[in-house]
């Protein structure tokens, strides 16, 4: 069933070429891995370095495989092309059992190593707490046990079509999420209509928000700045507008913000889809059907979307 080409004596030239090619490939793979760090937004949470390191590792291994395989393709394209009137066959090699077993085992070991490493990383992140089901109309927050190791929270994250509302333990409500740097924060993720997703690219973290379930979620921001929070789970007409900012600030600034904001009266918060919806209504409700946006949340701090974000 399997025959091999007749055995040649060791071909020194081939060994040298293959060695050089492997070394070049290793260098390229290493460079790609280093380069991959620049493809991300800045690292702003304790999870981010783990994710970026894992990605760099996979980029390195992936680049080695990619350039190795496509290098072989390039080689045969350069040196194994048939001439215009060449009707002859290639070398009639049907297989090589030893080689086939080796290249079954190599990917197997590679993915097992990556998977083991990933499990290790994943256990360290420990973002996800329990998820409890609740009946719509009841108070979901009564169900949720807080993350025992969190320093701050729980902060309620309420997602709607199409706005974000954040409720702090002292009752402050805001349209932008303020967090103290270097402290573990616990959230209770709540959706009032459809699926949404809490996604802060600079944190490298994402968690779906599921109507009918309340999810406990924790993270530790590690860098001060203004970062974008995006709804990542498609939620309808004005989904792309459903973004707000996360402001990570010093403990002092966070405390000040909480106390001053608590004195502000409630007012309509950010409602980014509203302008588009109003324009649609002004045009005579043209376009395909949509549910109207939920009323803007009433908050103490409506935020300021005109301030540019860092990432």
């Amino acid at each position: 069933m399997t025959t091999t080409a007749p055995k040649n004596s060791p071909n020194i030239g081939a060994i040298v070429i293959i060695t050089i090619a492997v070394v070049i490939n290793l260098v390229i793979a290493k460079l790609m891995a280093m380069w991959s760090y620049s493809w991300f937004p800045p690292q702003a949470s304790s999870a981010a370095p783990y994710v970026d390191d894992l990605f760099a590792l996979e980029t390195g291994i992936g680049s080695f495989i990619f350039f190795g395989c496509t290098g072989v393709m390039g080689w045969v394209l350069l040196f194994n092309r048939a001439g215009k009137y060449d009707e002859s066959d290639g070398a009639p090699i049907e297989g090589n059992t030893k080689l086939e077993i080796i290249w079954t085992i190599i990917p197997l070991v590679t993915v097992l190593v990556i998977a083991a490493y990933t499990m290790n990383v994943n256990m360290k992140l420990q973002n996800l707490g329990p998820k409890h089901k609740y009946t719509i109309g009841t108070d979901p927050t009564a169900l949720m046990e807080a993350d025992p190791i969190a320093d701050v929270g729980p902060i309620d994250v309420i997602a709607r079509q199409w706005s974000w509302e954040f409720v702090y333990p002292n009752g402050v409500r805001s349209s932008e999420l303020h967090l103290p740097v270097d402290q573990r924060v616990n959230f209770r993720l709540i959706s009032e209509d459809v699926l949404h997703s809490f996604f802060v690219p600079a944190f490298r973290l994402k968690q779906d928000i599921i109507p009918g379930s309340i999810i406990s979620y924790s993270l530790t921001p590690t860098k001060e700045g203004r970062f974008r929070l995006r709804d990542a789970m498609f939620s309808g007409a004005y989904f792309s507008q459903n973004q707000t900012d996360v402001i990570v600030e010093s403990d002092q600034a966070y405390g000040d913000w909480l106390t001053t904001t608590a004195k502000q009266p409630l007012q309509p918060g950010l409602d980014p889809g509203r302008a588009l919806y109003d324009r649609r209504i002004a045009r005579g409700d043209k376009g395909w059907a949509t549910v109207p946006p939920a009323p803007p949340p009433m908050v103490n701090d409506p935020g300021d979307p005109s301030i540019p974000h860092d990432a």
Partner: protein
Amino acid sequence: MTTTNYDPRVLKAPHPVPGAPDNWKRFFSFNTDAKVIGIQYIATSLFFLLVGGLLAMIVRGELITPPADLVDPTVYNGLYTMHGTVMLFLFLFPILNGFNNLLIPTMIGAPDMAFPKLNAAAFWLVPVFAVVLMGSFFAPGGPASSGWWSYPPMSLQNPLGHFINGEFLWILAVALSGISSIMGAVNFVTTIIRMRAPGMGFFKMPVFVWTAWAAQTIQLIGLPALTGGAVMLLFDLSFGTSFFRPEGGGDPVLFQHFFWFYSHPAVYVLVLPVFGIFSELFPVYARKPLFGYRFVAIASFGITFLSLIVWAHHMFYTGTPNWMRHIFMFTTMLIAVPTGVKVFAWLGTLWQGNLRLNTPMLFCLGGLFNFIFAGITGVMLATVPIDIHVGNTAFVVAHFHYVIFNTIAFGVFAGIYHWFPKFTGRMYYEGLGKVHFVLTFIGATLNWLPIHWAGLLGMPRRVASYDPEFAIWNVLGSIGAFMLGVASIPFILNMVSSWARGPKAPANPWRAIGLEWLLPSPPPAENFEDDIPTVISEPYGYGLGHPLVEDEEFYVRRSQEALTDDQRQPRHSA
């Protein structure tokens, strides 16, 4: 002597419908000849490739600038939902069923499918659900617009309250598509198991047949889950049940299990036959046996098995606990092993080959190049922390299109060019084919490679507008997409003009080895009829110098002599 070679083990299919037309009109009739049905499938799906492509052009036109300024966001949502649905259910699934119809009977020496009328019925469901799906554009409130996965509760929102709405028609179309695919799968699997030529053991079947078998097995296991989920969604939408509605105590995440239990393996339903096409074409154009044929064949079923236990990797961030995420990460990553076996086998086939770079080979090489890339980003997506960052971003969209377009559609084009002479009896124009390849390869790369970076930076998928920091990647992507639109022009020109006036094709223009190449071009109604050859060798005997079937010279001579329909007719009735 050969007429006595009939082997009673080979089931004979019933004759075609009596009085079925035998001219161009047969392509518009309820014809039971698998080859006619194959071409019906392929022509229909290529039409819908253009429809789906047109929708994609509008989507990419919207995304060429950051604000939502081309169409209303609701229209945008409807367009990309329909783009995804059309491309999957009206382009890719039907076109691969077209290949199955053309290739399975001819490759295994069967006169037709096991159930020819079921086969025709399965095809004619395609235009029916196409009309239902396209009809949703005219439904009050517009077509379905909750993405091709149609997650509740958003897909259950029915702002106008009409009973007939876009979502209703969408679910109906998906269910009809599932019924059509199950009818096809029963037929293909039965045909492969029961109707092989004498001597064709499983390890003498071409790899395309193996992969089609593996893929159709997934259809049989997975589609009932999707269809069940779709029926429940329809009940929630139209009859007030609460399977997935949180207000009534339902769980929207349950739908995701139903949906992905089928819809992740569905990608393998599409990609496995394309692996089959690669495995058929590389040996022909490298003039070498397929490296490790048995490994490649068995790996197909390895993929089938693993594909059924990976679905929850689409749900890493829906509140799935860590222990479950780890299990599904492992199974998903393990898919890299059988696919890796295939990739290495193709590289082994190319190695020391004698390569001919005509259009089918170019599309295969391009598809393999893209697939290696897609496989690597696929492993990245399987690892939980990376998926948590890039999941539901443009990165996933880019990876998905690297699989679906840059690999699968490339393989489909390769297959169309390769078997075009066999089934139309005409040669295509090589120059136009190469222009098509070059435009497609550059367009596809420019379209999807940059989008990976938009996703890594955090651009969500399905947005009609985005922050300016993603603009550069999207501009590049849109230019690539428009280039793909232009690439369809030489393809259409080539197909239409070649079929109408191209040079007559010989029986075996590529000097390929396989039962289908022992038939005249185009093959007669019942392929080998009673002269079914006895297979004596493994496929892909390039350079090995042994015949594939007993009395091979007879079949070669006969295939070369029967050149036209008129000449074939008397032999048929004799």
